[in-house]
């Protein structure tokens, strides 16, 4: 039964990525290479972030919320954005339309994030006899993360790849990108500073991811109209 539970949580965590790839036109245009490259870029940025965190951060004994440390972590989180920029602009992709490029990059990014952060705890924990709700919540968190990554990639492509944007929308784009980029800090503040429990935090993440996705979709389609 325990392997069964592991299997359930695994398809909850990694299933949506596969479904997204096969359902959207990404599979028709064979953008797997792009996703793989984006995943590798994520790996690189994770390593850089790790080194920076180890050098600059001091680990506190209690689990409270230290504003200075969190600020530092948020700054280091912007390395993520830099990595995404690199993946979107610098890598040579085959001739894919911009529409699909950001989706492929976002997908690869989210998949790498899920594997690195969630596979190991799942493997070690979900196979035991003891039952907890943690791994199901972790899977839901992975889903929210997928939506957030794709919306961040969309906003990123809007910022860096699209040359003519309506002037009024530019600050909104940057603001949304900023919010999505700092999501990790916001969730850790909720968990430690306000003391929210895990289910509540996951609910919040799902909600904001849907909201952000909707907003970025609107922005994208709004920017698309003039160039189309």
């Amino acid at each position, binding site marked *: *039964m325990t*392997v*069964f*539970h*592991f299997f*359930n949580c695994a*398809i*909850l965590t990694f*299933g*949506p990525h596969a*479904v*997204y790839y*096969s*359902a*959207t*036109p990404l599979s028709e245009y064979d953008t797997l290479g792009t996703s793989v490259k984006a995943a590798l870029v994520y790996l690189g940025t994770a390593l850089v972030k790790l080194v920076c965190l180890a050098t600059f951060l001091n680990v506190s004994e209690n689990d409270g919320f230290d504003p200075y440390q969190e600020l530092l972590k948020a700054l280091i989180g912007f390395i993520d954005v830099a990595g995404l920029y690199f993946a979107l602009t610098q890598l040579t992709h085959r001739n894919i339309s911009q529409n699909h490029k950001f989706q492929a990059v976002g997908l690869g990014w989210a998949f790498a994030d899920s594997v690195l952060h969630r596979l190991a705890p799942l493997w*070690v*924990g979900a*196979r*035991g*006899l*003891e*039952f907890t*709700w943690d791994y*199901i919540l972790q899977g839901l968190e992975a889903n929210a993360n997928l939506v957030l990554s794709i919306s961040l990639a969309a906003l990123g492509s809007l910022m860096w790849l699209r040359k003519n944007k309506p002037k009024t929308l530019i600050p909104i784009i940057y603001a949304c990108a900023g919010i999505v980029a700092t999501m990790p800090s916001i969730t850790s503040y909720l968990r430690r500073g306000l003391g929210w429990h895990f289910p509540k935090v996951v609910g919040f993440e799902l909600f904001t991811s849907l909201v952000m996705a909707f907003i970025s979709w609107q922005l994208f389609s709004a920017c698309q109209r003039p160039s189309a």
Partner: protein
Amino acid sequence: MAALKKSGAYRQLLESMYSMIALLFILVACIELCNAAAAVDVYRLIQYDMSGSPFGSRFAALNHHAASLHFPPGADLSRTVLIIPLRELNITFVREYINQKKPLGGLLFLLPQVFSFENGGNKQIHEKEKLKNVLAELEQLLIHANIPYPVYFAFENDEIDTVLSDIKKNDAIGQPATATTGGYKLVIPTPEPKKVASPTITNIQGWLSGLKGDVDANQLPTIAVVASYDTFGAAPALSLGSDSNGSGIVALLEVARLFSLLYSNPRTRGRYNLLFGLTSGGPYNYNGTQKWLRSFDQRLRESIDYAICLNSIGSWDNELWIHVSKPPENAYIKQIFEGFSNVAEELDLKVGLKHKKINISNPRRHIYGHQGKNVQIFADDSSLAVNPSYVQSWLDLLSRTPRVAPFISKNDPFVMALKKELADHTDEVTVQNEILEGIFTFYDSTHTRLNIYQVASVTFDLLLLLVLGSYLIVLFSFLVITTRGLDDLISLFRRPPSRKVKTA
């Protein structure tokens, strides 16, 4: 051409990845991880054969669901473990179960914390007395029965209490419904219990020679002081405590210490040789003492004038009982009794005389025991006073050490400690190792760790799979509709027939 080759290579890569994942899953099935809700120390009921007939709990490994006493009547318990706290024990219920040989997965008795050896103190003595009687009755029932499932004892603590209250709640409702209030599984992964090969009993004796004077040393009469140091109980790992016969041991060691002080100076040396014996095998019909006596030289045996066997001193309040084998009218007995009474009067103790007929042909004929409180023969506040801290520290040690003979090896640290202690106080110490023969065979695996897991039922897993499957299907259709349009979704299901039409 190049594109085909590339796609072929791609496909091979994917296939090798799939095979690796499959291999990984096979490996997964072999590994079992422990992440229990609670892990508790448990002690197994003794398992022994007496003349070939099996007694006690015959199994050690456990892997069943837990239930409390409030289980729905008529439920099948052959794959459940009943958790019974001692406070709620209904002895007739247990007796009925055992005598009628009803099928059961296992029994777990929870002993209150007051019985725990780490927890000293005399709080709630009345409750303790009542529980002690219940426990004694339970012990007698379990020792003499042949139980074909594991029986364990554990001490109550917070974790087990919460688990038990949860189980009771579930049992009151009926069958557990959801995953979080689902069942608890008790797992003890030990191998089958094996026989203890050649259990040894170790007798330690110490000898203090008396004043030789004008008489040859070998012709001095001897006084023997004997006590047995091992115990027996329903759960061998819990058979500790100062009675039967820790108090006797402590008294013997204290007497040895005092007499060694006296005998070290020739002026205060008495005209008796003193022989101190620490024997094992007490509960098994004094097997060890018997062997020890048999090993004596004939002359030594003849020279023993008096033999004092100290047994369970300190169990009664202020009474001292002397069991004698010869009738009380015997002059020697009268003399001893008078001596004891005089001393006892000064100390507010009562001394009684009990005549117990003992089989003369048995070499035990010289042994009579007396039970009573700590007798302070020597004056207080002198260097020969009984040392209370010495007595206390040895009593503490004995209260904390389980001393069932078959499970104590020859070189057990406790035995070594006794030997060293006796060597400090006597001239000469000899150790005799014998095999506990006879009609008993014991089995090991007395102390192990129980893991309590909170498990979800199978239906929960299947339900979750169903929910996830439908979620993924909905997600898939949603994405296809939004990105490719509804026609594409419908065409996904209609493709095979249209292909047939095309080829035809």
